[in-house]
């Protein structure tokens, strides 16, 4: 079962002589994560502004009354929040800013190990260049051109964003609905299924409750034909009577080797 288009990934050779391939986060994930982070920062500043207006009545006047030094420190502080936010979050939360955490993506080095301070510092300093001329235009173009969707900062730092999927293993270990004796027999006598067919059947079973009735019936029938080649005609008719019977047969079939 090969995917239609190979998804971009990072290959890592481990000392255990097993190669890992980590799926790379594309431009969509990255933009969404940035939006989450940017709105967090935005609301932080808005909240700060309101707190200050509660304490000081005339904010602009008060700001102008500040000495040049304090204004300078404020400007530096504003920049530092922008840069420190990203860098510290990535260093201390294992490559994840809050936005990346929400989207389940993570910054890692190209060999799959966690980012260190210098890598994170580089890729976040380069934000300034990737942002040029507006709204990450440079970064987005680089991401579109690069095979692993890296922006300039990632290229310079040698980092890449990987995606963590929520994979449900329950479908493999779920107890089958108690099959009738005849079904167990008919399924049991046949050869065990290959991994590909098992995957197909299980994917169908986990989605079946959400399908429309006739589609559910039709797909079930096709799967029965595929995995139950040895069924006699009457047995086949019995299995195809109702969606429930079909799925019960398929579930037993997928776990036939038990």
């Amino acid at each position, binding site marked *: *079962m090969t995917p239609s288009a190979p998804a971009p990934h990072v290959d*890592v050779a*481990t000392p*255990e*002589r*097993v*190669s*890992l*391939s*980590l799926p790379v986060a594309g431009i969509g994930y990255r933009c969404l994560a940035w939006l989450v982070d940017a709105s967090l920062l935005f609301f932080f500043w808005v909240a700060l502004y309101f707190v200050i207006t509660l304490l000081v009545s005339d904010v602009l006047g008060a700001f*102008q*009354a500040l*000495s*040049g*030094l304090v*204004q*300078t*420190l*404020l*400007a*530096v502080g504003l*920049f530092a929040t922008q840069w420190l936010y990203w860098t510290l979050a990535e260093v201390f939360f*294992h490559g994840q800013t809050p936005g990346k955490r929400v989207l389940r993506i993570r910054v890692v*080095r*190209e*060999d*799959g190990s*966690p980012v*260190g301070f*210098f*890598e994170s*510092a*580089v890729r976040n*300093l*380069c934000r*300034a*260049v990737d942002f040029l001329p507006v709204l990450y235009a440079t970064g987005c173009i680089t991401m579109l051109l690069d095979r692993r969707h890296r922006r*300039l900062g990632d*290229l*310079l*730092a*040698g980092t890449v964003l*990987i995606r*963590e*999927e929520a*994979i449900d*293993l329950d*479908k*493999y*270990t779920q107890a089958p609905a108690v099959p009738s004796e005849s079904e167990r027999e008919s399924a049991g006598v046949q050869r*065990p299924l290959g*991994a*590909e067919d*098992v*995957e197909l059947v299980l994917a169908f079973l986990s989605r079946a409750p959400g399908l429309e009735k006739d589609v559910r019936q039709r797909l079930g029938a096709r799967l029965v034909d595929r995995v139950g080649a040895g069924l006699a005609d009457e047995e086949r008719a019995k299995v195809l009577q109702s969606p429930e019977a079909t799925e019960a047969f398929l579930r037993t079939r*997928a*776990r*036939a*080797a*038990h």
Partner: protein
Amino acid sequence: MALPLPTFVSRRRPDWDALQALLTRQRSGRLHLEELRTLDTLYRRAAADLARAQTFYPGTDAHRFLNQLCGQAYGAIYQPPRERWASTRDFFRRDFPATLRREARFVGVSAGLLVLGLILGALVVLLEPRGAELLVPEGVRRYVAQGRMWTDDVLSVAPPNAVASGIATNNLTVTLFAFASGILLGVGPIFTMVNNGVLIGAVGALCFREGMAVGFLDFIAAHGPVELSIIAISGGAGLMVGQALIDPGELPRAQALQARGREAVKLVVGCAPFLAGIGVVEGFISPGSFFPTWTKVGLGLSLGALFWFYLLRSGRTDAGVTRVEVPEDSASSRLR
């Protein structure tokens, strides 16, 4: 003969779940030695399972799950030593000055570009009076025309002190941009350095022509030497990146970029505290006439001398150690 997939999963799953739980606890940093050993064992088992899944169940969810699990465990087990606070001291005592001395030619070129810009800007304004209209920002020109320094008002309540903080943020932006734009084939730092040289040169020449040379010197003397050094250093860091892109040597371009980028960012990160310190000088001491000019000049020169003394001498005492470390360091970054 391979087990059927569901059997395989249900038989091996307890180990995987245990590994996942340990990894979560490892992330939050609460792990006993005993658990650490278990983590190692479980990771090896999971790696073996992954190898099995790659052979017998490729493309299934179980395969993807194991892949991800092993990826996380691999990251946790084989992570390089983390930079901790103790190494910060080491960085400033040895690593940062040593890196600077090693890459001195880039800093030299960048400083040269800055000086070139200075001379160009000054020449244009001195030889062609209308050149100032082109090169000097309008706000500054208005002040100079009135025979005042634009910085006189910094400590007063008047609105123009936005100019001063504008200048300070500008220095920060210039420093960072000079480095980061190095990835644009080194064109960015060259432009930034020359551009800023021209700006400073033009303003200086304009003040000189209007008979305000002392006022200009008064403002720039205390922080100028260190600040221009920092800008030159970060420009040099940008040039390092650009050079790695244009001439990566024996490495593939991407690898050369990463190896050099890691070195270059050390220069920028190392400069950061000094930039903050000089910002205080610029905000407190430089503007106004509270301190006499000769104090400012003396302070500026001695700060500059101290800065360069630190950069050129620090960590020299154990130069032997550094010399051994350098090839090792570059070798390991090549392997990576």
